[in-house]
């Protein structure tokens, strides 16, 4: 792996996951790592191929940006969920341009990290409401994001 990882219990997934030891540094480095991994990836015989994974990463980073802004700006907002399988079909993941997806993923990641830095520790402690999981913090969402990156990086690399 490109950085040190540990096993941790994800508050959102409710299971043990691989987690970067330095979450913020991993979040910043992931667009480049994922772009390199996707360039070397072969189309999957089943499940998502590189094009679909890139579209998924781009869309989830938009969705995280929307959540970060609401959590920082509102008092314990109820956060909308989405069905990633429905998105994959309705938002044409199989046809989406990989370069456009990766550019948006990287640009949104930089903007989201800037928002998190400016929000500081007090921002990370802000809470939001999840329909199934109850009260969570922005920090839970940030760590889950890093776990999600890492899971897809390993998936793409076949690890």
């Amino acid at each position, binding site marked *: 792996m490109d950085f040190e990882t540990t096993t941790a219990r994800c508050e959102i997934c409710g299971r043990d996951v691989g987690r970067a030891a330095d979450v913020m540094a991993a979040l910043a480095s992931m667009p480049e790592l994922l772009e390199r991994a996707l360039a070397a990836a072969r189309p999957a015989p089943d499940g998502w191929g590189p094009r679909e994974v890139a579209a998924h990463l781009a869309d989830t980073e938009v969705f995280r940006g*929307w959540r970060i*802004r609401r959590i920082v*700006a509102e008092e314990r907002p109820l956060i909308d969920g*989405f069905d990633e399988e429905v998105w994959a079909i309705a*938002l*044409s993941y199989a046809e*989406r*341009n990989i370069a456009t997806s990766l550019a948006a993923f990287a*640009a949104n990641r*930089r903007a989201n990290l800037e928002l998190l830095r400016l929000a500081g520790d007090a921002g990370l402690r802000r809470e939001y409401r999840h329909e199934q999981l109850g009260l969570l913090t922005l920090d839970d969402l940030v760590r889950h994001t890093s776990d999600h990156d890492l899971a897809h990086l390993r998936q793409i690399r076949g690890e």
Partner: protein
Amino acid sequence: MDFPTKTNHCPICDADVEIPADLFAGMGQMPRVIARAFKEPHAMGGGEGWTPPEIVAHLADIEVGLGWRIRQTLAEDEPVLRVFNQERWADVLAYSERDLATSLAAYGANRQLNLEILRRAGEAGIRRIYSHPEFGRHPLRVLVEHIADHDLAHLHQIRGA
């Protein structure tokens, strides 16, 4: 203007507004036009209201909101959109401290991605209906045209036009 425009009635603003004659082509050019506008001789340099970096932070954040709303409307049946307060966003999301280049890059990349999704969704996609707690039920096209008008209003603001 950098591309042909036309007058359009916006049901959200309930006013006649200016939008690109070729909606998607004009919207695709707008991040570059905005970036160039700051370098023009009469571009605003601050004073009353938002400064240029604050305007671009606003455009970048609005584009994220648009992206989420486009995706919801295409993937769900008549979703009820969340409302947000742009003045509060400007305050708590630190528009005065945001990096201009980061905001411009995010605005541009999200705009290209949103337009790709809209193009792939086609006419059937932009006819899909969403519901807004304040402005009611509209097809997605109304929201997209509203953002195109919003872009142009801020471009004119930057140029002092």
